[in-house]
């Protein structure tokens, strides 16, 4: 899986969680500051990503991430 492909799928999952298909998101978009994603919404996103990538994600897997791109990079490492 390429980083670009992974990023695209992460953005798709975020749009599902935010219920906003037209949201402008790229790799630099900050999860908390730009998208107002809190810890509970982060859990919802993790579940969406588990289904999208058919993997298991622990809450600790996303420790320290700040941007959408950080998630994609973490997932590429994991998959």
């Amino acid at each position, binding site marked *: 899986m390429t980083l670009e492909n992974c990023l695209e799928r992460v953005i798709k999952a975020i749009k599902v969680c935010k219920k906003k298909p037209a949201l402008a998101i790229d790799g630099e978009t900050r999860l908390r500051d730009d998208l107002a994603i809190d810890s*509970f919404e982060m859990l919802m996103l993790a579940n969406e990503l588990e*289904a999208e990538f058919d993997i298991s994600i622990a809450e600790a897997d996303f420790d320290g991430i700040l941007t959408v791109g950080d998630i994609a990079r973490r997932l590429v490492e994991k998959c």
Partner: protein
Amino acid sequence: MLTRGREIVARAGFNPYRVDFDAARFIDLASNNYLGLAGRVEVKEAAIAAIREHGASLCGTPVASGHSAYARRLAERLAAFCKLEAALFFPSCYQANNGIFALLAGEDDIIVIDRAAHASLIAGARASGAKISPFVHNSLEHLARVLERAGHYRKIFVVTESVFSTEGAIAPLPEILALCRVHDAIPVVDDSHGIGVLGAGGRGVLEHFAITDFPGVYTASLGKALAGMGGVVAGKAEVMERLEYLCPGLIYSTALTPPALGTLHGALDVIEREFPALGQRLWHYRDIIADALGAKRLGGEAPINVVACGDAETAVRLTAALYRNGILATPFIEPSVPKDACVVRLIAGAGLAEAAAQQAAACLRTCIQACF
């Protein structure tokens, strides 16, 4: 977070969480006194009578000295009021929501929970050890998708509130129950802002949607429209029996006090006798305030008005302006709501005079114009 909160309070010159007020000089749109029962003579007298007859406190947990015949009779009355088999009192609804999952769910189970559910439900679900899967707020489409992926869990719980009080939206409970049936899931609904408010008789969300034979777990606060203190968990008798003897939040806490029970007794008397008139006034005041908010009102269906403020500073500034004009309101900022979706909540209870509701509406028009 605390520092940011202090900055906002300092700039507004007003701390909405430390409001000192003389109730006689203010119009209260901040409390959850939906029907005005907290001030009703009959309700106060019922609390006093309960103290006289049963004492100020039972000074024990329900399984020790707190399981009185008086409490049992009242629990049966409340269960019948909600059209459920059995009910249990908890010291608070927070404790009820926080405690039930530890007993009902475990690590082989999944709790699918509305993303906007109350903190007590989230904390309780998280503490159970079950898999937690939030679904998009009030989205049946997303809930269905999450449930389709949950088939391999031993038990599936679907958790929501009836009324989301920071927006006034009512959950689509009949459709949620239909999904629960399809996926063999157990519904859990917190009706804290529905009991005493929704339904033709004020019996809550189940009456509102004409739901009979509710198969899940029902919780509610007794400290909102019912004007008392404590919480209730209700549902099937066999589930309540299990909770009664095993739920730590219940068996290790002092039982609900006689005055709290007496208040509930008095409140149910008034609701059963007068709800059509009280409810009509509540919805009338809701419309008066809604008109004043115009486009700034979030579109909830419940008798709650919510002003969409965006950032926390605007929410606190509007609350301060209202306070200076004799109106009490409640701002909700992060973490209660997302940081970009701060609101001010207004509940114009049936206990207000018509003139007070009109005065509040006029004041809201002025303050909203000044703050946005």
